[in-house]
């Protein structure tokens, strides 16, 4: 038995069932809010959604179509050199499934011109001087859920499949991340071009895990006018996808960053745990459950569960800057600021 807020409870209280939702109710609520926010509050005529082919943007697009109708939803496919062809196929499949207007704009030439790939490769070559343009790479997070400070390893792979990895120091880490952040920021620039052109709002597609833990690029994918699923755990987003009748290949897709040239799961890059476990960890932490209960549920030690809780708090602190609006030195009360 465990004691939670003065009440003795069975140690089996935390199960995946805590994330169950009533999808019809949730869908109705989001759709009503979308109509109110986009139409009444923001005075826009529709929404732009960037379609990555992943579960979050797919659900956001489907909810937008339910709320506003397909003629008021504009989709964007924005592949680049390192994104997978499968993602583009899934985005296209979804747009056609939803019967929305969409266009494809390959952003690789823009990224090339702005120096995205060059800056990234320059940083990689400081770590691996032999790195060539036809090699692949990715970043992998380590440390946090083992009780250490978080750090990143750079993984590179030669065309014949030979892999090497090294820990990154802060300069190379920051430069690689800054360079790849160009991708999200260029995409957002294009989203706002079309939003301005059509007098639409831009939909941001983070789920609760991403929003809470700061897994987004400031002024990149973090920028939007409305974020319909930021209150939903990833598990719940998958449930909505099934309820909304999205193609099974999307409903069964595994979350990836689709940002680096080597295949990279979100758990490798940022969360360090598969989303199902991260969802339960975040839910347990949000509801004040002791580490013992999370440990029991996930089949890990109490110490590991405490490390997960600590990592959640660390990421919240570290990424508060991403959520923050620009800070004024003095108030401007006429604007309520």
């Amino acid at each position, binding site marked *: 038995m465990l004691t939670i807020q003065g009440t003795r409870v069975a140690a089996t209280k935390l199960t995946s069932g805590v994330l169950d939702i009533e999808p019809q109710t949730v869908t109705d609520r989001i759709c009503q809010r979308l109509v109110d926010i986009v139409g009444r509050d923001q005075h826009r005529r529709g929404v732009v959604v960037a379609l990555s082919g992943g579960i979050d943007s797919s659900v956001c697009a489907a909810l937008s179509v339910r709320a506003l109708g397909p003629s008021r939803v504009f989709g964007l496919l924005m592949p680049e050199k390192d994104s997978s062809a499968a993602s583009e196929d899934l985005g296209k499949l979804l747009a056609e499934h939803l019967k929305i207007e969409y266009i494809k704009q390959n952003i690789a030439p823009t990224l090339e011109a702005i120096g995205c790939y060059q800056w990234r490769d320059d940083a990689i070559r400081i770590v691996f001087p032999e790195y060539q343009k036809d090699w692949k790479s990715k970043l992998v997070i380590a*440390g946090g859920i083992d009780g*250490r*400070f*978080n*750090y990143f390893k750079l993984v590179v792979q030669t065309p014949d499949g030979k892999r090497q990895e090294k820990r*990154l*120091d*802060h300069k190379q880490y920051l430069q690689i991340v800054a360079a790849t952040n160009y991708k999200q920021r260029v995409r957002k620039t294009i989203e706002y071009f079309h939003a301005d052109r059509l007098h639409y709002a831009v939909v941001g597609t983070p789920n609760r895990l991403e929003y809470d833990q700061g897994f987004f690029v400031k002024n990149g994918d973090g920028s939007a006018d409305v974020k319909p699923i930021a209150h939903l755990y990833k598990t719940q987003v998958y449930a909505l996808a099934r309820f909304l009748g999205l193609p099974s290949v999307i409903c069964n897709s595994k979350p990836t960053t689709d940002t680096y040239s080597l295949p990279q799961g979100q758990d490798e890059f940022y969360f360090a745990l598969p989303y199902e476990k991260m969802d339960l960890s975040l839910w347990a932490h949000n509801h004040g459950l002791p580490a013992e209960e999370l440990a029991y549920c996930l089949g890990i030690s109490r110490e590991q569960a405490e490390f997960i809780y600590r990592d959640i708090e660390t*990421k919240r602190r*570290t990424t508060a800057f991403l959520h923050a609006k620009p800070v004024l030195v003095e108030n401007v009360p006429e604007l309520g600021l």
Partner: protein
Amino acid sequence: MNDIKTQVRQYILNNFLMGGDPERITDSVSFIEKGIIDSTGVLELISFLQETFGIRIEDAEMVPENLDSLEKIEKYVDSKLT
């Protein structure tokens, strides 16, 4: 021994706090709990310690018990140098 703490305190003051009162960073204050250093700052601190003291900080050693206060850093760096 004091030299390690003095150098690290000065680095933290200059690099993370843009100057200020050295007394703000007492020997035992937690950099993380007090919001003095964030996770990127930890990586910067590790680079500083490696370059300044000529040590290699292994992955397994990147723990708060070694790096989250001046006195912990002093003890840790001293152990690496001896």
